[in-house]
């Protein structure tokens, strides 16, 4: 039975409002998980130290999980529309690796390395790296869409090896390793503000959603309908690079979110940007919140870096999607 009505096809689970509600519920749950005792019942009789923990550690952490999850998955969605390939994302297009190289360059050349230096340089590197990969995709037409993420990962690994070499040469390995692995335990009220910059970024992506929807059909169709493809492509890549950079600088590299969330949503809701944007953002937030809860509870009271948990769960889902995509 292929013909289904609009409402039946979408299903209630993927209703944006329902997903938003789910984000709130899980976010509240996430607030009350941690080494320091803090229960929902204490909320109106907080001790000073509990209030301190809530405001300076738990709430910033939960907010940053939501922002990072939605930003990474929306960046992935955008990349997939820009390249017309389901398997391209900041992880598999060299964006993350390039941003990390940028951070290392910033650390080496600006020993004071203020956050603004790191942000700007990492953003530039991420943009250039992604453009390089996009140009490569355009020149070398890969017949098999599965090849694209694999080539992208190789490209990312090459960039990463340059980063490692530079880090070793300039003895900043210690300094750098914290950016390499995703970890939300270092988030506090002081550095969460950088991630809040992703809000206007997401708003901008939503604003141009209609353009990106059509760009998913390719350059020619876009130009026939009067979209300046080159300009919009550059804008899209810059937005992806900026989003990725902001996440890496606050939480570190978190793999796979940008691929699996948009693809899972697309299976249910199709490829119209207007239909998928908000569900993708919310689902990304839910995914990271859940992964973070797992990371904090598996070896309680210790904590596993979230990139390890995400990598383990994400790679299984990624293989599932690859096999599914290979058949279609």
């Amino acid at each position, binding site marked *: 039975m292929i013909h289904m009505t609009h409402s039946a096809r979408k299903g209630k689970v993927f209703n944006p409002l329902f997903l938003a509600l789910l984000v709130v519920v899980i976010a509240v749950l996430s607030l009350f998980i941690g080494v320091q005792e803090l229960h929902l019942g204490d909320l109106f009789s907080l001790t000073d130290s509990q209030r301190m923990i809530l405001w300076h550690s738990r709430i910033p952490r939960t907010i940053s999980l939501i922002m990072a999850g939605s930003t990474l998955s929306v960046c992935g969605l955008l990349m997939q529309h820009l390249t017309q390939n389901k398997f391209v994302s900041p992880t598999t297009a060299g964006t993350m690796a390039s941003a990390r190289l940028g951070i290392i360059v910033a650390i080496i050349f600006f020993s004071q390395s203020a956050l603004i230096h790191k942000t700007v340089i990492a953003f530039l590197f991420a943009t250039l790296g992604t453009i390089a990969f996009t140009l490569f995709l355009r020149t070398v037409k890969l017949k098999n869409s599965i090849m694209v993420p694999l080539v992208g990962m190789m490209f990312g690994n090459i960039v990463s090896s340059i980063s490692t070499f530079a880090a070793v040469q300039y003895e900043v390995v210690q300094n750098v390793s914290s950016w390499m692995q995703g970890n939300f335990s270092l988030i506090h009220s002081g550095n969460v503000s950088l991630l809040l910059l992703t809000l206007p970024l997401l708003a901008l992506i939503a604003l141009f959603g209609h353009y990106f929807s*059509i760009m998913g059909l390719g350059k020619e169709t876009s130009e026939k309908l*009067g979209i300046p493809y080159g300009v919009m492509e550059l804008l899209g890549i810059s937005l992806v690079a900026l989003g990725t950079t902001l996440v890496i600088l606050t939480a570190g590299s978190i793999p796979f979110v940008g691929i699996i969330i948009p693809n899972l949503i697309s299976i249910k809701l*199709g490829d119209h940007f207007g239909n998928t944007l908000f569900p993708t953002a919310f689902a990304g937030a839910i995914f990271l919140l859940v992964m973070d809860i797992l990371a904090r509870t598996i070896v309680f009271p210790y904590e596993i870096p979230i990139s390890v948990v995400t990598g383990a769960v994400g790679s299984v889902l990624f293989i599932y999607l690859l096999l599914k995509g290979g058949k279609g």
Partner: protein
Amino acid sequence: MMTIENVSKHYGDQVVVQNVTLPVEKVKMTACIGPNGAGKSTLLEMISSLIPHDTGEIYIDGGEVKSWKNGDLAKRLAVLRQTNHMNVRLTVRELVSFGRFPYTKGRLNANCLKMIDESLTYLGLKELEERYIDTLSGGQLQRVMIAMVLCQDTDYILLDEPLNNLDMSFGVQMMKTLRQLTDDLGKTVITIVHDINFAAAYADNIIAMKNGQLFAAGTTEEIITEPVLSELYEMDIDIIEKNGTKYCLYYKN
């Protein structure tokens, strides 16, 4: 008005289209025929501004295509090129609604919704509107693409081999639809057709191209003649007439 004057296109030393000057009659259906590699598709791409022309001028409604902003040209001229399988999960209605983009940049107003509904109904797609396009047959997808072009609400509609990959019955259906676009809706249709019998049966005017040059142009009556076609295709073509329509026989000469 559309006027095409002295238009040429070359890639390096190779001349693909050479000094083509074309009369295009308004509110008529014009078929473009000719052997493979005659430059038909290139000419169509230049008219629709997908590629720039090297020399000459192409005017649409008084403006040179190069000077039209892309968004404005898309309100006057729509192009349908060969569509292979589309690997995108969009519903029929969503794809057709993209035709409104030049007007509202994606924010559909009441007029857009009316146009979308009319286009879907016109091509008999109302029942399929919620289907994903990757589940459609070739003939259905081709109808959806026409609906999208129609939804763009342009005076000029250009098509590059719309009959490709369609079986005979879908082919006839497609040509009848194009005929209706001209007769009922007053569109100026220019379509590249490989099957000269379809051109002979449905077109008002015919443009024949050969080796990048305009070989002949005129009414269907003038072009579908033995001397013109035999020289154009360099083969013997016999022409018979039945019920006022000419048919070209060339299968076994």
